[in-house]
């Protein structure tokens, strides 16, 4: 990466917003000065009394945020790190870690606003740039400090809430959603493992996070998004997270090409213990992901938790028995991969389906993702190194479509699922995600280049990119 491009990236991250560190005073709060508790808006972020916050919901969402963060660091980092060759393990861990840091700042600057504020059906607004208007003002101390200012007096003892989670502080909702914005690009790393330049990876992830992740999250989750309006069901991110990252992964595998020596040299995973620890952390963290997506500590969260566990077990066993039958041995990597496939597939369905459909979704995901990672990849010849496309895009699609089949009106307040509507959401994400991801990659390829040199690749990215190695 040239010095110029490095400093440009820094400027992009550090660009100061004029209001970011002044007292945050959103225009929306000025009306809320009466004595009756303000009712939170269901269409845009609003400000309510501190006492209106539900402590049970908030406690669960604080925990969920931490659980989902744990899925990326160290969960996904270890899951992928164990599957690469020893000379690339640090570079692989580094990708997840650096993405966590990079996306955190971008989310604060612009991502959250584009995804989760009202705007057009295709992209959110800019009202929450630099977290502008996300407030919490404690009653007594703030009153003493700011009593002379009428605008501040109006928000004393109040807290902003998102319209997507009206019982928890907006800070908690925004941070919970941040962890989704982190893991989605991190999942893509599986496709280009062992050969992408670190600088190119940072540029790709930064741009992708803003122009692919944020809009698609807005389509499906923000009530004004076209997908949400059309009734596309995506409880915890089957479409937004898994199809989205999976199709970008395919774009990466195609744009970067195969690893040097693929199918000629051994490329076996160097330490499956790391991979199993990673898969297990993903599994545990996924309860924050799915049950947390209820944005409440309630019965729906409980049902999401139950179906997540059941579908995961079914998928892990389905993959294991498929492999046992076809490849003669039930492998450790196989059962761990099957568990991840099940977690992916139940994600869009988790708040919408009952336990029996969860078993069916799990088995379907285990069988279909096994075939995608083994036969489909071989047949089509792309080098999706760690099966980010085969597990996340295929598993996400299985889950999204089956959500349309099995969604129970009892669980989601009367909204019935439709396979046709689900298919619209899936196709839109596939097309937009693939085209834009591929374009970003091509632009990076002609400017700074996507791949390391063959010599660097053979030496291993740990030493050639980071100047370090294990052992």
């Amino acid at each position, binding site marked *: 990466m040239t010095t110029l491009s490095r400093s440009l990236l820094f400027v992009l991250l550090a660009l100061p917003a004029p209001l970011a560190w002044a007292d945050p005073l959103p225009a929306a709060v000025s009306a809320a000065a009466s004595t009756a508790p303000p009712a939170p808006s269901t269409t845009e972020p609003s400000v309510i009394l501190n006492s209106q916050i539900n402590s049970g919901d908030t406690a669960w969402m604080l925990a969920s945020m931490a659980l989902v963060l744990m899925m990326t660091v160290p969960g996904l980092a270890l899951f992928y790190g164990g*599957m690469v060759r020893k000379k690339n393990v640090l570079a692989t861990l580094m990708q997840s870690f650096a993405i966590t840091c990079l996306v955190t700042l971008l989310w604060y600057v612009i991502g959250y606003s584009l995804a989760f504020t009202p705007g057009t059906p295709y992209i959110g607004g800019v009202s929450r740039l630099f977290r502008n208007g996300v407030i919490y003002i404690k009653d007594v101390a703030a009153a003493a400090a700011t009593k002379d200012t009428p605008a501040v007096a109006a928000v004393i003892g109040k807290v902003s809430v998102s319209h997507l989670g009206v019982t928890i502080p907006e800070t908690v909702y925004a941070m919970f959603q941040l962890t989704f914005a982190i893991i989605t690009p991190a999942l893509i790393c599986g496709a280009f493992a062992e050969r992408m330049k670190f600088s190119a990876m940072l540029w790709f992830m930064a741009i992708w996070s803003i122009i692919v992740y944020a809009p698609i999250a807005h389509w499906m989750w923000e009530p004004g998004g076209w997908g949400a309006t059309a009734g596309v069901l995506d409880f915890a991110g089957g479409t937004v997270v898994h199809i989205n990252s999976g199709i970008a992964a395919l774009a990466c595998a195609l744009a970067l090409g195969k690893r040097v020596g693929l199918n000629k040299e*051994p*490329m*076996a*995973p160097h330490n499956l213990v790391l991979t199993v620890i990673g898969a297990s952390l993903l599994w545990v963290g996924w309860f924050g992901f799915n049950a947390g997506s209820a944005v409440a500590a309630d019965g729906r969260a409980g049902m999401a938790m139950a179906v997540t566990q059941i579908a995961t077990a079914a998928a892990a066993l389905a993959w294991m028995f498929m492999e046992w039958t076809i*490849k003669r*041995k039930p*492998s450790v*990597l*196989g059962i761990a*991969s099957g568990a991840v496939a099940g977690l992916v597939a139940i994600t869009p369905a988790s708040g919408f389906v009952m336990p029996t459909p969860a078993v069916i979704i799990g088995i379907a995901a285990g069988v279909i993702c096994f075939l995608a*990672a*083994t*036969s489909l*990849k*071989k047949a089509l010849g792309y080098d999706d190194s760690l*099966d980010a496309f085969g597990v996340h895009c295929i598993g996400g699609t299985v889950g999204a479509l089956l959500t349309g089949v099995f969604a129970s009106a009892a669980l989601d307040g009367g909204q019935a699922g439709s396979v046709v509507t689900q298919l619209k959401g899936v196709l839109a994400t596939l097309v937009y995600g693939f085209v834009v991801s591929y374009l970003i990659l091509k632009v990076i390829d002609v400017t700074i280049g996507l791949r390391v040199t063959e010599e660097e690749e053979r030496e291993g990215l740990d030493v050639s990119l980071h100047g370090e190695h294990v052992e």
Partner: protein
Amino acid sequence: MKLITAIVRTHKLDEVREAVGDLGVSGVTVTEVRGFGRQRGHTEVYRGAEYVVEFVPKTKIEIAVADTLAERVIEAISTTARTGKVGDGKIFVVDLEQVVRIRTGERDASAL
């Protein structure tokens, strides 16, 4: 004096060490090695990708002994390291010209 080099299955190391210890062998050098003989390698499958592992992990044991002890050590290693299946390993025996104990400068038989 003879230098006996035995390539054996890794899990047989402890048995071999005990057997030669009982014979009065006073020193053994052990190295983890990889190689192939008639056993060849084996196939590993990761998510459908097959890798032929051509070099099998084995343990190399080196023992320097007096001529009088050599035959019994060879016999002990053969007996303890044997499973009867392909891949039990090999024993190489060569004449040893000199032995030096570094600490004292002793030579040959007294250095063994």
